[in-house]
């Protein structure tokens, strides 16, 4: 009983990290046909945002609120990664709709740049950059259209840009002077420490579950629920799905496909940021932290079937379950008297890295029967 409970918890824990990481990817891939190899780096950005938030909350003024910094970090990470994602969409990806292989290569280039960026730019200045971009993006949506039409257009635009740049520079210099750790570039890994109330575990039925893991599970559940409500119930959700199905027709119906692209990609990237918070709670944060997750996320998407939230959920948890069953050698504990050759095989695969090997083989095997994943899209248009 305990064994099953422990195994189940581990599976859910592994699966929920995968799920929250793959969720944004599944949205961007499923709804926009964009293969975002920089998704891992957007997670990395989210993880670094958590780190910066943590350091800011250690400042004397904010010290009393230190306990809730993780919760605020989730929102900040969503915004920061979303901002970077929108910048990416506006500059690169919008030119590449309809050719997924090209998006794959271009976003890989972006991921290299992002990795090197956090290595060579001090985090304080990086924060400044993000704030500049964020405020100027905000301006472009907030300023009423009629103000942008007259001959004052240039003035207003320059003013908006200047304001956001000034805000960025101010934040950057303030951060750099207040927090010395943020003022130097470093390629070394950093650590995010959980606030005291999140350390330790919860005892249930004589077992201890780590609180950070539980928090990640909660974050995942909230993200999935929020995304599915957004996509299925909100006005923007309908528009997004409409654009996915027929871009030209949607445009004819007066849907601004550009805004839809921005919002979809922004949300996908923002979710990567949330995943980044989860990842930062599990281990140290470095420029390469995203790369460890990206292939797993893609496996989830492939296994779940494209454009299907339920498929993504089920695929994540089944991969989580498999990882736990194979990687921890649970089969041997469940069935101790296994015949020798089988037992040594199970033993051979009972490390995390070898479990990956096995899971890949199983996924390829599964695709022999269901090439389009668990929940394939049906219809006449699928193949062409």
């Amino acid at each position, binding site marked *: 009983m305990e064994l099953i409970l422990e195994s189940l918890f581990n599976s859910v824990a592994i699966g929920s990290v995968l799920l929250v990481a793959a969720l944004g990817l599944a949205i961007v891939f499923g709804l926009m046909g964009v293969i975002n190899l920089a998704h891992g780096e957007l997670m990395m950005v989210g993880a670094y945002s958590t780190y910066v938030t943590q350091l800011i909350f250690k400042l004397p003024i904010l010290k009393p609120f230190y306990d809730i910094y993780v919760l605020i970090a989730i929102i900040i990470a969503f915004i920061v990664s979303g901002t970077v994602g929108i910048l990416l969409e506006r500059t690169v990806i919008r030119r590449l709709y309809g050719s997924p292989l090209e998006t794959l290569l271009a976003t890989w280039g972006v991921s290299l740049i992002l990795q090197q960026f956090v290595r060579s730019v001090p985090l304080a200045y990086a924060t400044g950059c993000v704030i500049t971009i964020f405020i100027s993006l905000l301006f472009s949506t907030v300023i009423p259209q009629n103000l942008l039409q007259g001959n004052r257009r240039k003035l207003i635009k320059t003013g908006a840009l200047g304001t956001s740049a000034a805000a960025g520079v101010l934040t950057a210099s303030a951060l750099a002077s207040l927090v010395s750790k943020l003022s130097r570039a470093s390629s070394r890994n950093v650590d995010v420490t959980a606030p005291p109330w999140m350390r330790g575990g919860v005892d249930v039925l004589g077992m201890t579950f780590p609180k950070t893991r539980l928090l990640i599970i909660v974050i995942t559940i909230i993200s999935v629920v929020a995304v599915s409500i957004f996509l299925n119930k909100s006005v923007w959700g309908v528009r997004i799905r409409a654009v996915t199905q027929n871009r030209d027709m949607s445009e004819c119906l007066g849907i601004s496909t550009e805004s839809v692209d921005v919002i979809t990609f922004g949300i996908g990237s923002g979710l990567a940021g949330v995943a980044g918070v989860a990842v930062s709670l599990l281990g140290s944060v470095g420029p390469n932290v995203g790369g460890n997750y990206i292939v797993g996320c893609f496996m989830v998407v492939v296994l779940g079937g494209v454009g299907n939230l339920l498929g993504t959920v089920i695929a994540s948890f089944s991969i989580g379950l498999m990882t736990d069953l194979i990687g921890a050698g649970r089969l041997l504990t469940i069935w101790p008297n296994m015949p020798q050759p089988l037992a040594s095989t199970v033993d051979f695969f009972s490390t995390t890295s070898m479990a990956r090997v096995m899971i890949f083989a199983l996924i390829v095997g599964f695709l022999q029967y269901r090439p389009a994943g668990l929940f394939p899209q*049906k*219809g*006449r248009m699928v*193949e062409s």
Partner: protein
Amino acid sequence: MTELLLELKGITVKFGGFKALDDLDLILKAGELRAVIGPNGAGKTTFLDVITGKVRPDEGDVLFKGKSILKQREHRIARLGIGRKFQSPRVFEKLSVFDNLALAAAWPKKPMPLLLESTKRAETERINQLMSIVNLQTKSNVLAGSLSHGQKQWLEISMLVAQKPDLLLVDEPVAGLTDEETDLTADLLKSLAGENTVLVIDHDMDFIRRLNSPISVLHQGHVLCEGDMKTIQTDRRVIEVYLGQPEQEIL
């Protein structure tokens, strides 16, 4: 010449809850020229998809030369002798006109012979002959992508012929062609029938009339009626389908 070439028995295809084809029966004799018409969404393209193996029907069977071809994969069906022209012209745009035809004419279609041998003399002659039929002989080395729409249609039809199929399935060959080109296409298809069996799908009535062949009318996934142009034009059900039900009858 009267043996059965193709037999469709009770074909039903469902996409989700929607029946694209519903208990469809159709028989083609060898050497026949047959036109299939029908309003949009009648299942014309799905019907070709079933014959060429792109779509597996949920029920029914397809017999070609007396044998079921349901379990065969597309390229096998093509090698058995069923050639297909797609709705919008699909030629290999980055290859020259000659190479396009050579790909269609090549036999056997296996990797090793293709790698080790070049196009045979008989094939080259045939290709030149085909190019002169469709007026492309001056374009032999031109990339197919730079041809006009009508030339692409003809190139695709001649590719189909180069494949030497017993059954030619031609999907909307005159879409986007000028009147003159349409007439030439009709004559070309007529000249192919007899030696080959030809099934043409279109909804250009002038073109169909010019084909002067038996017609099957498809509606909501099954054959509504069959016969020559006159029979079809006077058939009440066909008129209803195309023009809508006369109002007084509803009342």
